[in-house]
């Protein structure tokens, strides 16, 4: 039970950290100054959320476990993030599509997690929900702008959709540690938020003149929640964890 809570908290922390790190790769490379700043701010929010989860996860263990150790000294196989958070950014359209689908998921998810019987998870959710509301709003506007924009932007966002879509199925399939926490109302039953997510995604796609992929035969990638990742996570961690690996215990 305790270990399930630890793994579940890590799953939530890893989601935010990995997505936050990916978005931070745009810092200094955004298509224009304002958007560079916006995406860096969103990255900061996510990394802040992950810190709250890591601190809580560390508190569930003994004193030898710290937030830094959890973020910077675990290997890819131990990360429990959704695959959508680790896949490379691609172009602006792909980054936007990833963020839009993921933020909308986080929005629906945190709305439920605020009712968790675990007070700390509920508190982090309450805090995060406010931030995620802005992320959804910002990324939705970009999806609409790109979809309903030029021929080129429309082509790119459609391609982004095709590339990112197979990574959405995993969001609504609970891992074992997650399922085992549903009964005592600690975790969110993610299968139940799918309709809410779908409704929100559909309405933005519609405004963006894009169609919602109804095809039930799309192969959905899974594994992230249980530590089975794409080859991209290793490279991401190599960069993100470099400092702690090279200079163990380094603080500033």
């Amino acid at each position, binding site marked *: 039970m305790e270990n399930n809570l630890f793994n579940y908290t890590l799953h939530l922390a890893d989601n935010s950290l990995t997505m936050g790190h990916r978005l931070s790769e745009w810092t200094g490379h955004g298509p224009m100054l*304002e958007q560079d700043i916006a995406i860096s701010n969103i990255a900061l929010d996510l990394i*802040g959320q992950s810190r709250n989860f890591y601190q809580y996860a560390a508190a569930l263990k003994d004193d030898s476990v710290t937030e830094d150790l959890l973020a910077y000294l675990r290997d890819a196989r131990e990360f429990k993030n959704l695959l959508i958070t680790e896949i490379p950014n691609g172009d602006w359209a792909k980054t936007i599509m990833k963020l839009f689908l993921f933020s909308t998921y986080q929005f629906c998810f945190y709305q439920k997690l605020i009712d968790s019987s675990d007070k700390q998870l509920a508190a982090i959710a309450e805090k*995060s929900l406010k*931030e995620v509301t*802005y992320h959804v709003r910002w990324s939705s506007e970009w999806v609409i702008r790109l979809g309903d924009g030029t021929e080129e932007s429309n082509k790119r966002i459609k391609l982004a959709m095709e590339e990112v879509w197979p990574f959405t199925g995993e969001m609504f399939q609970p891992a074992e540690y997650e399922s085992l926490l549903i009964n005592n109302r600690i975790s969110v039953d993610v299968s139940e938020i799918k309709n809410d997510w779908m409704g929100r995604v559909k309405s933005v796609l519609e405004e963006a003149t894009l169609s919602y992929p109804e095809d039930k035969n799309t192969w959905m990638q899974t594994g992230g929640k249980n530590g089975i990742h794409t080859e991209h996570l290793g490279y991401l961690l190599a960069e993100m964890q470099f400092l702690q690996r090279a200079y163990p215990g380094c603080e500033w």
Partner: protein
Amino acid sequence: MEETKQNVTINKAWKLMEDVYDPEIPVLSIIDLGIVRDIQLSNDAIEIFITPTYSGCPVMDVISMNIRIALTENGFKKIKITQQLSPAWTTDWMIENGKEKLKAYGITPPIGKSFDKKYLEELKVECPHCHSLNTKLISQFGSTACKALYQCNDCLEPFDYFKCH
């Protein structure tokens, strides 16, 4: 009697917090921002409860350090700073005086109380320079996560708006 002495100490600590400023918005104290939730005293240890504004706000550590310095310099020895996430911080807690200071500094304070009912685009955000309401949103994220970037259509100056949160 003992209780009175305790209250004096606690009140002194509250007073000191008025001189701890947000490094990113140096006109606002942490009292103006409304992030000090509670101050308690037990066994000679003073405990300050603060609520972070944004999860990733990089100045929370600096603020904690400044709280510690302010208390240490004024004779407090045992100091504990506890971050309290719930209830989540909201711009509604920013005190009126703080909003006035913000405006004088050139940042438009948060408008209204409801956080997600109004979209940024629908708000009438006043230019802190010429007070015109004829302004436009440039970006939902400004120089820090808590601000959006606007521009005045009359005086053409860009300015920060402290978002409702």
